[in-house]
């Protein structure tokens, strides 16, 4: 029998399915090691996902809370607007926050007697002023002093009108170049050049408003604004509108209700400062009078029986608020509780929103470190896997495996672990994030949770897991692919 002649052709590439099968076999055989690697990936991804998830939830919560709080405080805002003429800075801020067509925009235009074109330029200047002022106010005290000296708020712009002050400011600004300045130097200089005009507009608006405030004051007599607002008679609202404030009927209704509530709340709190009342409450709560805080009182009033008892006491002592029913008081307590909760959410989520996806700089750094550790962990596991399989890899090469195939097996193996680890980690991290938010803030956290964004983040974490695994397996699999086939001959 004759042997066939040797003719050398290219080796066919192995199908992906077959490669995958071989890789799965390998994982199954080294199940424990693979599990450990998966856990390493999962822990790192879970940490990342937790930070990102909490950032997302807190961001959503903060936005909601800010909106709700603004909603709840309409009466207080109106009360102060109707009672005080306002400052240049307040005018700039009001304008900066409004858009053409807003009631506030129209009000400012009317009160300042400005043309549409002037309003547009005034608005632009106001936006710059707000960004600048916010930036300076956000600096620490020493830096504020260096930049603005003793000037507070818009006084800074007044200072910068002289050439030497401007030069001094410029020197300090150069020294603080590393800060993230919201405006370019040219923008600042242009703003300062136009400041006199801007300030004049703002002062005109302030004047117009003080005239309007005077008109409102005449309409309310010597009654407090908030009380007068709470009476909700059309007459006062008409007077307000006539004075030049833009208050539409719907707002008027909401404001009236909030004003009534605010007045009633103040009555309860004032009644509590009466010594007799305080003693009675303390006895009921079995505490010392000095220990009963207003928060404790409100918590007690949330209960209908206590509210009834308190209403009776109010009538008995003929205190203001004697006309409040138990149901009124319970409603007020409930409102107070909600307000407190919103404030707590606001405070808790105050630091959020900066950086990438609401992850602060510090947390971003920690996440990065955890991901690097994860990469090192996977690389180590893969290197061990390669070292352990020296003979097997070499044998496969003797049997005709191409370098690319060997490399693919290992990269695929790592990617597989990355998919599983990434998914587990993402899910666990998301659950922990939601759980933590829920336990500290209660149901509002769950309501505010942006589920779609969270699901997207889990998907992204799978991608990150695969990416990390692929990255970490590059060197080990390259090492495996380059292994000399004669290693198979070696005897340990």
């Amino acid at each position, binding site marked *: *029998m*004759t*042997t*066939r*002649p*040797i003719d*050398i*052709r*290219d*080796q*066919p590439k*192995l199908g992906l399915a*077959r490669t995958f099968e071989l890789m799965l*076999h*390998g994982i*199954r*055989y080294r199940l424990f090691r693979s599990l450990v690697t998966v856990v390493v990936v999962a822990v790192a991804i879970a940490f990342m996902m937790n930070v990102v998830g909490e950032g997302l939830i807190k961001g959503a919560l903060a936005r909601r809370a800010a909106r709700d709080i603004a909603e709840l405080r309409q009466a207080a805002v109106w009360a102060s607007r109707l009672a005080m003429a306002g400052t240049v800075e307040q005018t700039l801020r009001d304008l900066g926050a409004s858009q053409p067509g807003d009631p506030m925009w129209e009000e400012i235009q009317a009160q300042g007697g400005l043309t549409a074109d002037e309003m547009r330029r005034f608005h632009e200047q106001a936006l710059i002023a707000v960004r600048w002022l916010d930036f300076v106010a956000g600096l620490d005290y020493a830096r504020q002093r260096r930049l603005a000296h003793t000037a507070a708020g818009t006084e800074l712009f007044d200072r910068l009108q002289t050439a030497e002050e401007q030069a001094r400011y410029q020197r300090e600004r150069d020294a603080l170049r590393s800060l993230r300045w919201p405006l370019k130097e040219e923008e600042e200089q242009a703003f300062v050049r136009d400041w006199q005009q801007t300030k004049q507009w703002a002062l005109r608006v302030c004047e117009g408003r003080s005239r309007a405030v005077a008109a409102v004051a005449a309409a309310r007599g010597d009654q407090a604004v908030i009380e007068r607002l709470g009476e909700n008679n059309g007459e006062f609202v008409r007077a307000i509108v006539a004075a030049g404030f833009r208050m539409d009927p719907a707002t008027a209704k909401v404001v009236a209700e909030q004003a009534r509530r605010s007045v009633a709340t103040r009555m309860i709190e004032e009644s509590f400062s009466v010594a007799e009342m305080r003693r009675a409450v303390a006895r009921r709560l079995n505490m010392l009078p000095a220990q009963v805080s207003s928060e404790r009182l409100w918590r007690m009033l949330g209960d209908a029986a206590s509210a009834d008892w308190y209403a009776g006491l109010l009538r008995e002592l003929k205190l203001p608020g004697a006309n409040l029913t138990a149901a009124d008081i319970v409603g007020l307590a409930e409102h107070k509780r909600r307000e407190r909760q919103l404030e707590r959410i606001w405070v808790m989520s105050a630091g959020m929103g900066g950086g990438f996806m609401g992850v602060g700089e510090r947390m971003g750094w920690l996440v990065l470190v955890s991901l690097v550790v994860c990469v090192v962990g996977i690389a180590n596991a893969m290197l061990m896997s390669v070292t352990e399989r020296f*003979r*097997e890899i*070499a*044998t*496969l*090469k*003797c*049997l*005709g*495996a*191409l*370098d690319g*195939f060997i490399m693919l097996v290992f990269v695929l193996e790592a990617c597989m672990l990355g998919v599983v680890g990434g998914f587990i980690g993402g899910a666990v991290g998301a659950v922990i994030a939601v759980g933590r938010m829920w336990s500290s803030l209660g149901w509002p956290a769950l309501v505010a949770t942006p589920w779609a964004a969270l699901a997207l983040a889990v998907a992204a974490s799978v991608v990150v897991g695969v990416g990390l695994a692929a990255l970490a397996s590059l060197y080990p699999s390259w090492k495996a692919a380059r292994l*000399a*086939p*004669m290693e*198979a*001959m070696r*005897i340990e």
Partner: protein
Amino acid sequence: MQSLMNAQQIEPAAAETARAGRRVIIRTLALKKQYVRKNVVTEALRGVDSEIYTGEFISVMGPSGSGKSTYFNMIGGLDSPSSGRVFIDEVDVAQLTAVEIAFLRCRKIGYIFQTYNLIQYQTALENVTTPMAFAGVEPDEARRRGMDLLEIVGLKDRWHHRPIEMSGGQQQRVAIARAMANQPSILLCDEPTANLDLHTGREILEILRELNSKRGVTIICATHDHRMLDICDRLMWIRDGRIERVARRDEVHIEVGAIGGVTA
């Protein structure tokens, strides 16, 4: 000088096989290999000229450190020489690309290792069909051929066993079936019986002998096993990186006493 002497030693056998009409399947020319590690140069092969003929059963013998393994790696296309050439069926291995070498390893040469080197997580049949997959054989065809090969080595009924469930002899038989998967012309056996007991070793050798005689496969066998003397066509002794001696079996039988130490 040395290589000339070697050539002279090879001469009678070469002349004889040439008369028998056999072709040279592996030829080495002035093969040298140096390993440099931390500035220490180790000369593993110091110029080896050899010819191995199609269809013969040749045993390569030599003490450990003689360069026998290096020689094996060279003729198996597993390592490249420092200088000199290796021709496998008149093809210069040094001229081949990585992919072509993979093709060569896959279909032209079957490797049998002292430690069997079966893939631990595959069944006997999967082990046998793996090289076929690398050669692009359809799974069904591969399965059929794999079963045939397992039958030849007498393990047809254990096709679904994993290496861990088999004895050393059975594992080596699976390894032989695997080496034969793509009908190679050459079987390169590195001490195939060293880890086996006398009886099992003999069975393995018988399988090899049968493959050699029935299928015409060229078998190159590195060994310490004196039983090899009974079945091989020729013997080659390597010592200190050189071919010390090449002889036909019938010549060796007479001289066994004289060679002492090498085979005994």
